[in-house]
């Protein structure tokens, strides 16, 4: 759709600079935005990589959202280990299609999430960079030094935020930012203090942006690369995490690789169990939540200003959709959808056919509808 809009605005594909998440395998573990089974879904993700390699050189077509698993029960080692296992599934599938490792590697970026323990988080990023560089070089034979760079975006920590004494969440997110900066992440997106209540208010969004700006431009935390390097504690943590991450990756390989482990529900089960154990620790007070399960005041009522939404949006959107449906060329839509379906059946790259359907104003529902007829629908494995 971005490409269609760019085309409409007369912007060349070589000028499009876009990061899409497009990380379908993670969706089966957490977040759940899936339709098709993992194998055909993996194909569509790699179709996008392949299309970008040919048409949109500045794109970052996959951002592996390992952090979503972290926020849903994964340990630091599992976050990186599963994230890499998923990334390698995309990479290997692209290589199997004859693409070049140095072209694909720089297309893959990551989104990670932090807990507040910034020593461990900083060490996590250091360990992840070592493993990525090593495996890209040794296992995949990358030659371009750029392929060895772990391009990553960090932040998150939403599951660490409390409803009680909500302003304390600003301090919590500052700790998240510290772990990201000291560990050497390239971009940061923090959560807002009111997220346990509502969609963040404009004020809360401004505070989270200012937090990073203050850390970078007043506290000067970004002045030097790898400031933790050489500390006995951080080096020890980094080495331990490196080992633990490799064990997680080996376990996935033993289970038949990322796709098989996800089809069988293995990663989902470990992740859900991790979340359950963590919740029990919060309830028992073993995991401290200041102002919530420790030092909190029992009878205090907390609230924040809610981000009100406009209830007329739904109606306006429906009207817009109906308008588009009335005005578009129906024969053209039908033809595009048929061609998309045929492309899906034949195994060719579906992106150009999707683009044509988008330009004919086919809806997402219509496009996924024809793909569903070819690919089928995912059935969740039992997780507990």
């Amino acid at each position: 759709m971005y490409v269609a809009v760019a085309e409409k605005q007369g912007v060349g594909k070589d000028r499009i600079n876009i990061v899409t998440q497009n990380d379908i395998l993670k969706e089966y573990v957490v977040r759940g935005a899936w339709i098709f089974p993992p194998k055909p879904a993996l194909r569509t993700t790699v179709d996008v990589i392949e299309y970008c390699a040919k048409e949109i050189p500045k794109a970052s077509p996959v951002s592996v959202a390992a952090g979503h698993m972290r926020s849903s029960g994964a340990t630091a080692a599992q976050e990186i280990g599963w994230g890499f296992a998923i990334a390698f599934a995309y990479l290997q599938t692209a290589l199997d299609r004859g693409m070049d490792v140095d072209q694909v590697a720089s297309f893959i970026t990551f989104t990670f999430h932090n807990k507040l323990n910034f020593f461990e988080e900083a060490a996590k990023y250091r360990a992840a960079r070592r493993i990525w560089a090593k495996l890209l070089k040794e296992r995949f034979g990358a030659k371009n030094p750029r392929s060895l760079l772990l391009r990553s975006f960090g932040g998150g920590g939403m599951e660490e935020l409390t409803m009680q004494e909500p302003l304390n969440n600003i301090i919590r997110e500052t700790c998240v930012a510290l772990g990201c900066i000291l560990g050497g992440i390239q971009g940061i997106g923090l959560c807002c203090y009111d997220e346990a209540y509502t969609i963040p208010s404009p004020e809360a969004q401004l505070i989270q942006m200012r937090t990073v700006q203050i850390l970078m431009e007043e506290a000067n935390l970004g002045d030097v690369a790898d400031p933790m390097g050489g500390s006995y504690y951080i080096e020890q943590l980094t080495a331990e995490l490196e080992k633990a991450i490799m064990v997680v990756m080996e376990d996935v390989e033993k289970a038949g690789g990322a796709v098989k482990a996800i089809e069988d529900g293995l990663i989902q089960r470990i992740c859900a169990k991790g979340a359950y154990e963590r919740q029990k620790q919060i309830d028992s007070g073993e995991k401290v939540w200041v102002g919530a399960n420790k030092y909190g005041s029992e009878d205090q009522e907390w609230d924040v200003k809610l981000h009100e939404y406009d209830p007329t949006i739904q109606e306006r959107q429906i009207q817009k959709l109906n308008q588009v449906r009335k005005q578009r060329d129906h024969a053209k839509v039908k033809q595009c959808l048929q061609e998309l379906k045929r492309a899906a059946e034949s195994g060719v790259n579906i992106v150009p056919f999707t683009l044509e359907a988008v330009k004919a104003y086919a809806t997402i529902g219509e496009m996924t509808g024809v793909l569903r007829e070819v690919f089928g629908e995912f059935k969740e494995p039992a997780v507990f």
Partner: protein
Amino acid sequence: MSQRRPLRVLIGKPGLDGHDVGAKIVSMALRDKGMEVIYTGLHSTVEQIAQIALQEDVDVIGLSILSGAHLPIAQKLIRKLQEKGASDVPVVMGGVIPKKDIPVLKQYGVAEVCPFSTSLTQVVETVSKIASTRKRT
């Protein structure tokens, strides 16, 4: 005394909301307390949830919603249960639910709401209390 079957709970994730960590945690906690838990999985419709509740003769429905659509979904489910003659099955809700919406949900007929930050012990207590109430009637 006649043998009583364990409390049977349906945990539902209605709509496209994919945030299922809470639903899974609550399911595991209820199961560990000896209840029978049926989890719908993601992307279920209100119609499906009401249908399963009826077929499985559950004692309570737990709905987990973090998408902000808790009000219309609750209203729809309560209506659907009434239509199917199952209005005696109580509904408990959890998720990101603002305080001001709790009285509205109760007015629709939701038995209890466990918003974000409710402890597992409290959730288990609430669900089991409400499920037991239904069994006695």
